[in-house]
């Protein structure tokens, strides 16, 4: 009982509770039909949000104003790069993944270069960068019809006992991210910068280097995500990353990470991603029209943020 009580004080538990409630509402509607399949589908789709969500979480934790708006454009370009480099051949899968990773990391590094050289808020820097990346992607990916190599497409859809392998790997990755955040110098430095950038600097944290690493990390995760999305949806697309602007920011905030920075939460990203994906599944199951679905998604996000925002005022 005591352990349950401590569990309830964790901010991330609520996103899982929300996901569970949405799931229960959906299977109540279908009369229990497809309950397991829904979890499998939710896990496969949540993976893509979790990967970029973790990158966005590190960026947001750096403090107010830090946010990566270039993720959607980044994902789009990386998906095209991955598909082109792989060229439909199984032998090139690793090279293609590395290319997407490098492409994303380069975008992240450029983002920080703009922030540093022009001394502009990250929002503006990542925004201007995303304008340019978008055009590069439109020009580079024009008429791109390359299918992912069969081995890669199978890998992104591979399941063991109804659990997507990609989800298992992502869980391992998020555990790594949590350790990096809480137990490693890098993560502690990110938290320190988010709490008080000047104090962190005075304490000897190499602020510039940590911020550079964080933006590069976020970019690299966007790149990997683009490649995986192209594998899962069997093809690259300029608009493939569009929904991940809202999703990446929303999962961070719903998951209990402070928007004011300095307080991050890795498990919450998973809970919030599952919540968002299941929410969409629920609305689709209820058979609502596209307009109503968008409307409800927006209202629920605003509602959840409003409900979750209260604790911040106490601090």
């Amino acid at each position, binding site marked *: 009982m005591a352990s349950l009580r401590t569990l309830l004080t964790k901010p991330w538990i609520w996103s899982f509770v929300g996901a569970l409630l949405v799931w229960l509402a959906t299977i109540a509607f279908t009369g229990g039909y497809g309950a397991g399949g829904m979890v499998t589908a939710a896990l496969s789709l949540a993976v893509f949000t979790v990967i970029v969500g973790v990158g966005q979480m590190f960026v947001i934790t750096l403090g107010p*104003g830090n*946010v990566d708006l270039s993720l959607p454009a980044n994902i789009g370009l990386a998906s095209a790069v991955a598909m082109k480099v792989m060229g439909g051949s199984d032998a090139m899968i690793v090279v293609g993944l590395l290319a997407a990773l490098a492409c994303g990391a380069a975008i992240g590094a450029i983002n920080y270069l*703009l922030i540093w*050289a*022009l*001394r*502009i*808020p990250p*929002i*503006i820097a990542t*925004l*201007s*960068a*995303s*304008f*340019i990346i*978008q*055009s*590069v992607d*439109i*020009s580079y990916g*024009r008429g791109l019809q390359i299918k992912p190599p069969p081995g890669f497409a199978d890998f992104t859809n591979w399941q063991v006992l109804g659990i997507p392998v990609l989800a298992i790997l992502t869980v391992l990755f998020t555990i790594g991210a949590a350790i990096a955040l809480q137990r490693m110098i890098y993560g502690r430095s990110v938290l320190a910068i988010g709490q008080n950038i000047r104090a962190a600097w005075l304490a000897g944290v190499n602020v510039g280097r940590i911020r550079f690493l964080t933006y590069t990390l976020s970019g690299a995760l966007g790149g990997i995500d683009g490649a995986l999305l192209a594998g899962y949806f069997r093809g690259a697309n300029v608009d493939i990353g569009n929904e991940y*602007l*809202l999703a990446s*920011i*929303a999962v961070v*905030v719903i998951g209990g990470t402070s*928007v004011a920075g300095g307080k991050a939460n890795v498990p919450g990203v998973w809970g919030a991603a599952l919540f968002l994906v299941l929410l969409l599944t629920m609305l689709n199951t209820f058979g609502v*029209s*596209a*307009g*109503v*679905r*968008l*409307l*409800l*998604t*927006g*209202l629920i*996000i*605003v509602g959840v*943020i*409003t409900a979750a*925002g*209260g604790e*911040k*005022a106490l601090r």
Partner: protein
Amino acid sequence: MTATPIDNGFKGSAARNAAARARLLRGLLPALSLALVLLAIAWLNPRAISYFGFSLMLNLAIPIALATIAQMFVIAGNELDLSIGTFVGFVGCVTATWLKDAPLIGVIILLGSIGVYALLGALIHLRNLPSIVVTLGMSFVWQGLAILFLPKPGGKAPDWLLAIMAFKPPFIPFPIIAALLIAATVHFGLMRTSYGVILRGSGGNPAALRRAGWSVLKTKIVLFSLAGLFGVLSGMALIGITTSADANIGNGYTLLAIAGVILGGGEFVGGRVSPIGAVIGALTLALAASPLLTFMHIPPDWQVAANGAILIIVLAARVLISRRER
């Protein structure tokens, strides 16, 4: 920050003069970038610099300028509106359907949407919420409503609106008059009235404002309502030009509006914005994105990149100038 130079008087030292010059240059930067784009267009295609040419090239600049002003009010209060684009699209759909068929209901819907903006301002302030997330969520709400009102592209603009937007005054093209009017009105309201100072103060130093006995909640509500009002005007102007609507018609405006405010010398923090600069920034983006590229024979793929490049170039120029300001 105004576009007019700040005169330092005759106090004198050379360093101070240099600083004043740098500040003047910085204030003039938005106008200089617009002049540069105009010069480039004149050089590439002299015939574009005519009454007809400007009417055509600047046609879409009116809704962009209005959306930029809307964003500017939000940025003045240290917030950011990522929903203004879909809001403009929503207003467009209402304009092409309800406002045409049942004007009274149309007006009520549009006033109601401004009310929603006011509520958002209150909510963001009272609950201390991140405006980026709230408005990102709202962008889905507006888009969903737009699709519900107008499931497929169509509708028709009210005749009176078409008549206004097709207005052809003598000598000076309508878009230029409209831009001057918008800039002058907002400049007067925000920069030259005492409540305008309070509004900007809510972004500059909310704590000081609160201690001076002003309600920060009220300023946030006013700023967001003004953003809603100008968003409505932007959507209506857009439909007056395009004559019919589409739920996605305004999506690109979110980023354009932010870029316009920043190009015009606005800053993200501290309530430093410039209405005249914002309008100039919007005109620059409208001209550079499509006419200039067309004249340079650059494929439209690179339109978006042109916006990003201009933003980066102007910001880089600003950094160089600021360095001299010290």
